[in-house]
């Protein structure tokens, strides 16, 4: 090819690719309202997005896996807490120092209306159809259980208690919400597991201390129940 026409090697592939992208995006963007339930995007929900941007949440957390990797993905975090755990989730955001002792989160001065809007917004994002990502909330791959929930199974807690939809009904379900309401600190929860009757003399729960758990296991279990994960 003559030197004079060499620039076509650059310009033609570029134009082809740009045309393909524009065409595809045009179609794809039309699908977005359906896949994101954009009809539910009310002023209050959008106010939640404004608030999340105001506090720069996205530089520690990710949405759709994009942003800072310092803290969990928020796209579907609302599914973990559910409407029943809404108050707990609010408390985690408002008073992070109560909930996190290892890796800490900044305490922001978030207003009441902002936190409510954030909740509505996170509830909305948790229902976006984004091809079943992240894996932990996936319908196909699901949450397979972690150290804490494996411990619940291995120690037969689930014979009486329910966790994440599994287990018996003799004792109360072990949601973080319930745990936080019932115990004022991790220490009292720990004491209770070792000897339930010391905390509540009417409790029917068997004392599990000493024989059943190593110290490390007990620490892990308490942390797991307290943090709900």
């Amino acid at each position, binding site marked *: 090819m003559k030197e004079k026409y060499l620039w076509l090697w650059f310009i033609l592939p570029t134009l082809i690719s740009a045309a393909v992208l524009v065409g595809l995006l045009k179609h794809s963007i039309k699908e977005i309202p359906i896949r994101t339930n954009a009809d539910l995007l009310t002023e209050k929900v959008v106010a939640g997005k404004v608030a999340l941007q105001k506090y720069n949440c996205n530089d*520690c957390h990710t949405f759709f896996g994009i942003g800072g990797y310092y803290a969990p993905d928020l796209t579907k975090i609302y599914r973990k807490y559910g409407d029943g755990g809404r108050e707990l989730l609010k408390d985690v955001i408002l008073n992070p120092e109560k909930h996190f002792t290892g890796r800490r989160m900044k305490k922001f001065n978030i207003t009441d209306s902002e936190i409510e809007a954030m909740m509505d917004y996170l509830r909305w994002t948790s229902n976006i159809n*984004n091809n079943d990502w992240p894996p932990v909330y996936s319908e196909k791959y699901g949450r397979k259980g972690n150290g804490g929930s494996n411990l619940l199974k291995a120690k037969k807690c689930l014979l009486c208690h329910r966790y994440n939809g599994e287990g018996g009904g003799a004792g109360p379900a072990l949601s973080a919400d319930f745990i936080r309401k019932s115990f004022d600190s991790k220490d009292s929860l720990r004491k209770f597991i070792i000897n339930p009757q010391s905390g509540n003399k009417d409790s029917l729960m068997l004392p599990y201390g000493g024989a059943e758990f190593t110290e490390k296991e007990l620490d892990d279990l308490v942390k797991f129940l307290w943090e709900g994960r």
Partner: protein
Amino acid sequence: MGGQMIMDSKKVIYFYFIIALVLFSLQLPFGIYLASSYALSYPQWVVDLIPFSTARAVHTNLLVLWMLLGFMGGGYFIAMAEGGLNKIFSPFLALLQLIILFIAGVTGIIGFFFGWTQGRPLLELPFQMDLLVILGAVIFLLNITATMYRGWVQNRKFSAISFILLLGVIFTALLYIPGIFFYKNITMDWTAWWVVIHLWVEGSWELIASAVLAFLLAVLTGVDRKAINKWLYIEAGLVLFTGIVGIGHHFYWTGHPDYWLWIGASFSVLEPLPLLLMYWDAKRHLEHKPEFLSSLVGTLMFWSVVLHFIGAGVWGGFMTLPFVNYWTHGTQLTVSHGHLAFYGAFALLLFAVFYVLMSQFKGIKNLFEKRGVISFKIMTGSMIAMTLFFLMAGTIQVCLERIAGWSYVEAQEWMRWWMGFAAIAGAGFAAGAAIMVYDLFFLKEKSLNSK
């Protein structure tokens, strides 16, 4: 007057490089703080004072700012040299533009500490500062275009390198625009965000980088211009052909339809190809003049194309495959890829530009290279180590959090050590960078008896 003006153009470009180097130096302590935040448990007051989010915003914005200023300074020089001129169109406007961009960037970055932010990663700059950035960009575009135009009118000189460079800077400026608005729908927000970020780093920045690389090869190795032009066009064409639709690999999990999994993957697997060509072509040209290949600048350029190919091409390309990306997306593996890719593709190339032009501006014929070589070795070794440590942390994260289904926090506990090592590698990198910045500030002739 002529003599004075020649001095001025080069002096202004020199200021661009000085500011870029200062901002680069500031970027590094924030990086170390970020990595160490994973390894250690900082007390609440530290976190309240400088949260990870602020430090990350500073780290990434400084990166963008110093690289853009470096490319702008280099771009002015290339426009001038390729036009056969000895001054740019207006050194005064170039200086004004530098001041505007510096004020916008630094005000924005200081604002982050006081919560003044748009709250979108990498594009945190508030709207008012965006307007200043656009003003600076417009001045730059007018000034560099006028310089190239003058070269064409006066000397009939407008090379392939100038052409690609000009398109690169125009696209960079235009692509900034979708990023300044507020989007109600998060999926639309990320779509606009990726148009900025992806089409920058895998589109317009690549054009600028390949033009800069071609310019350095042309002036420093004495390879025939025809060969350089041919490969520049082919590489740049392939980069954009694969890169533009390649944006699809960012649409997998953001609420777009699932056909992007196929489209994104198909174009992304081709993305390493132009980078491989760039490596092969640069290597061939560098070997054309063996004594240059072994010099400091030759080494910087060689390792730039190598790490560009490995970090961006191989490492990045591997992760864009949907069945890999489903598990690895948003983990420390991305961090690992990002650091190596940016260092190879842009940072090393800019260091080469700084060494070539700053020593030329100072009139140095035979550069004292020892400090530069030492700093290069420390920085590159540290960066490779850091990449591997992030890789280890990311692998643990993928296995525990993503595949085994552990909670985020539980998986992070097992990554601590590797993040700590990454912070240490970061400190090593900062030490190497300090030597290089000092060296570039005080470049000197190789003395005859020091050999």
